[in-house]
């Protein structure tokens, strides 16, 4: 996970201060077992690692999860939980210190300190983006699609590990090839890799010393490649620009997304032949790397949805709107938008479009009468399952004259900017906040909460401006009728 720049300095400070503290505690745990499951996908690879921890000291509550350099680079979501619980634990990121151990450390705060021999099961979920690539890099229109996953094999840890096992699970049993690493005899007596069904299991490896060190990584870490068939298109959103405009006069929240969609699967070999595409569609045997349509889950209660691109409205979409639900009520209902691009997206093709809708402001906003604050939740993105969003920009436009603006994103943005947005009937413009994100995954689906105040006098600014403008117009007309400029009567 890349640290935002404004976080970096405090993080380094924190690191230097607490380094001695933490490193003193590196021998305070051991891992009795680690099981890692790598779920291979298209743009996203979901990794679940379960650490069975035993404390060797009393009162220790900071456990360090280490990720190797490559792994850390492609990790864009990191969440640690205790097994069987839903509450994520607080995690502090520590930057890579290349001179020391060659790993990125994530310091997990356990909810309560462990005493000696106390055990706990920690589940760490990470999502890797751009960890796979199509191989072969080109595929003809009717070819199958296969991807390669490349990654480091062993789970690193600053603590001694008694046993660990790594499972790589492909979406289908058709695994073309996988690496069988050699010279790991030090840790295992069995076969290093076994394949059963759609899963390749590495290990178990036993008696691994503390491995979060350059020496260990250099000597024992192995690079594995798994080549597998993938039956779904690899969807990548190169850029998502979301604009949420809050309107109190219209009691409306308008959300517009400008989306650059890319088919990140194997690029089309040769050219596109419509006749082949039509026969594939007719026999319902569309090659897996083609994106003919996408399904979006939009919020319930929306209206006036629109879908257009630079050439105007695209008529090939279908929307089923679910009725709006009250704010407090939890609901799994959503409006479904089946969206068909103008042309089927072959490998490597792009499609740029805009998708927007209006929703009642009451569905997502609340007013706290005691403090005078409005509170509003804006979803960071509309998740397309399995798709990665390379660059996201969420701009929230507040009502004109809003003050005391507070923005609370569900995870740290890379940048945050304030600006002024001017639109219809505005006099001084509306305050706007722009948050930028990188590599969003399907886990990044939280709400950005914003709070702001809008005084009554500001609400009345628009009618005032309009009446002044019209008054001025009438006055000019009045004077123009009355004043006689002719020289002679």
């Amino acid at each position, binding site marked *: 996970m890349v640290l935002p720049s404004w976080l970096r300095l405090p993080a380094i400070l924190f690191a230097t201060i607490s380094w001695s503290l933490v490193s003193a505690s590196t021998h305070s745990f051991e891992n009795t077992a680690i099981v890692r499951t790598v779920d291979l996908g298209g743009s996203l690879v979901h990794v679940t690692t379960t650490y069975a921890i035993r404390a060797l000291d009393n009162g220790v509550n900071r456990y360090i999860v280490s990720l190797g350099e490559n792994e850390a680079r492609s990790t864009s979501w990191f969440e640690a939980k205790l097994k069987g619980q839903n509450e994520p634990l607080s995690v502090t990121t520590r930057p890579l210190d290349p001179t020391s151990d060659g790993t990125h450390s994530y310091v997990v705060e356990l909810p309560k300190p462990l005493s000696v021999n106390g055990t706990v099961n920690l589940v760490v979920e990470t999502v890797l983006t751009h960890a796979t690539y199509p191989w072969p890099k080109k595929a003809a229109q009717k070819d199958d699609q296969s991807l390669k996953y490349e990654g480091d094999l062993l789970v690193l840890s600053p603590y001694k590990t008694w046993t660990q096992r790594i499972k790589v699970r492909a979406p289908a049993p058709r695994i073309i090839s996988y690496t069988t690493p050699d010279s790991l005899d030090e840790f295992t007596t069995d076969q290093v890799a076994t394949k059963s069904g759609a899963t390749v299991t590495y290990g178990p490896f036993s008696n691994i010393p503390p491995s979060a060190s350059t020496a260990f990584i250099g000597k024992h870490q192995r690079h594995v490649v798994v080549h597998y068939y993938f039956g779904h298109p690899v969807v990548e959103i190169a850029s998502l620009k979301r604009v949420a405009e809050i309107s109190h006069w219209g009691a409306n929240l308008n959300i517009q997304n400008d989306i650059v969609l890319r088919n990140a699967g194997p690029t089309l070999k*040769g050219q596109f*032949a*419509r006749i082949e595409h*039509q026969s594939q569609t007719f026999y319902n045997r569309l090659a897996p790397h083609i994106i003919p349509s996408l399904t979006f889950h939009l919020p319930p209660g929306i209206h006036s949805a629109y879908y257009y691109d*630079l*050439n*105007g*409205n695209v*008529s090939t979409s279908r929307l089923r709107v679910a009725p709006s639900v009250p704010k407090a009520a939890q609901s799994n209902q959503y409006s479904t938008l089946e969206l068909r691009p103008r*042309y089927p997206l072959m490998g490597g093709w792009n499609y740029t479009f805009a998708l927007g809708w209006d929703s009642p402001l009451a569905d997502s906003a609340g007013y706290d009468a005691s403090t005078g604050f409005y509170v509003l939740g804006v979803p960071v993105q509309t998740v397309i399952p399995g798709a990665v969003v390379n660059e996201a920009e969420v701009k929230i436009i507040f009502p004109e004259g809003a003050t005391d603006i507070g923005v609370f994103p569900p995870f740290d943005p890379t940048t945050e900017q304030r600006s002024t947005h001017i639109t219809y009937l505005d006099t001084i413009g509306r305050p706007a906040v722009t948050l930028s994100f990188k590599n969003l995954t399907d886990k990044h689906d939280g709400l950005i909460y914003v709070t702001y105040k809008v005084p009554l006098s500001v609400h009345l600014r628009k009618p005032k401006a309009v009446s002044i403008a019209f008054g001025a117009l009438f006055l000019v007309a009045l004077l123009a009728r009355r004043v006689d400029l002719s020289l002679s009567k």
Partner: protein
Amino acid sequence: MPASLVRIIAFVLISGAAIASRLFAVINFESIIHEFDPWFNYRATKVLASKGFYEFWNWFDPTACGVIYNILHYLHLPVDIRNICVLLAPGFSPLTAWATYIFIGIVPGYISRSVAGSYDNEAIAIFLLMFTFFLWIKAMKQGSALYGTLAALFYFYMVAAWGGYAFITNMIPLHALVLTLMGRFTNRLYVAYSSWYAIGTLASMQVPFVGFQPVRTSEHMGALGVFGLLQIIAFVELVRSHVSSKQFRRLLFVSVIGPVFSARWIAPWTGRFYSLWTQATPRTHRMAVLLMDLHFLIFLFPAGVVLCFKELRDEHVFYFAGVMVRLMLTLTPIVCVSAAVALSSVFDTYIDPTEPEVTEDDKTDVAKKDKSASTPASGATVAELLTDMKAKPAQRGIVGLDTRGAVILNALGMLLFFVVHCTWVTSNAYSSPSVDGLHIIDDFREAYYWLRENTAKDAVVMSWWDYGYQIAGMADRPTLVDNNTWNNTHIATVGKAMSSPEEVAYPILRKHDVDYVLIIFGGVLGYSGDDINKFLWMVRIAQGVWPDEIQEPQYFTPQGDYRVDDQASPAMRNSLMYKMSYYRFAELFGGGQAQDRVRGQMISNPGPSLDYLEEAFTSENWIVRIYQVKKEDPLGRDLKSANAFNQGKKRKRTRPPVRRRGLVSI
């Protein structure tokens, strides 16, 4: 002031009707620019809005939209530039209505050019046209240099906005000339014309597009000639008032001979002007179309003309001067004015004498009509006409209320039907976007968008010129020829490439750096406006430039039929256009008979094969097919044999490879 109130209400109603009747396309379909030409203007406006005025001035005009765009944004109204372009034409129509002050507002002939979405300068130009005429007449009546100058300014704007400005350039001098010939030369005419011509011409020469044309080409010669003539006449008048009549006659004789030989290097009348006078838009070809466009106005028109002549004044001749103009666009205002004159005189005669209060009813009933009946001092020409007529009411009395009622009811009925007819025509005939004929058929935009998103930014697209602007606007790619290509050789080059066999076309394509070739093919869907049906034009135009290489008869069967099935002539079957159209077409029908739905002919089953181009994209209903031009073979083979090699065919050795001659030749 009830009269003023009624006038305002009537004007608002006219404006409303004028705008609403033009929005059918936007409501039925969407805010999109249809038609082929306006896309160019749209692009031009975008440049203006984003790059600023001066840089743009060096290029071309359509300023109105850009100015409006900037003003609206300054006023915090961030309207999309496309919407401005789409709605500009309807927005200008009430202004035109106001300028002509009568019901041109909803006449179909004008609507055809100003329906929302046909973003064209012509919509503004009609307004300018009417206003320039108005100012001209005003200037002429008063002999006022001020109004002459104003007319010149609007003339200048019109020059900048529309190529058809030549219409004014000739109409005003014609008017002046006719007046002079009729012996109606006055000092007022002299002042008005001189001020208009001098300032207008100088101003129009500032437009880069026009340049020195006003003194070079013959379509501007009329104006110059009349200007000269007026100077001479004025001078002659001056001389005549000072010298005796005998001396005068001798002087006249000498001075006439001289200037005859001066006009040597004047270019022949250019085509654009011809087209204004003769064929113009294809819509005006048939009488039926004329009737549809103008409805009953066409019958009122002669009546109006007669009425104009009944009491002949200078400005009445003006309407007559327009009679010969067939271009629907410019004909419309004239017919409207005449028809309004006729109608209002009917109403005046039948309503005024006995029951003046009926006029009030009439006003509210038919908003458009009363306009002309109730405009006292506004200075509009028609209004003056009418006040004149009002001034001498009912020389011939109308007997009986029933007669009067019948006539008025009839007239009102006609007006009502006219409105219904206008609405019907607008909603049906003129407002359906030709970009996508049906709701679901959206192939054009699909293919253009594909080009835009998935080809190199600088890829050159070759297509027949009809699609040039659309490709430039929607796909944002440079094209070889477009709707504004006046160079016949360019168009013929495309025609030649399309009608030649692959190996002949390939060097042409490579020479012009063509990356993609786009064609329109309707055979799957039965879209008859496709390129195979336009193909003969390509052949003919190519033949005009290369008569040795392309001959039209070769594209017909020996029986003289234009066929695409297995009886098609070899030239037809080998042509690039044929191959691109029917490439893999037969496969669509599985093993069955492949039928072209436009031409109703069977296509032979192993269809044509392509060696030098490859299919890059075909839209959902096959209407747009895009082919990529292959690069030269890296091994230096010609692409035909390279292709055969790739398909595993054995190379036929027909003749030994040509050995290179030594370069040294002593």
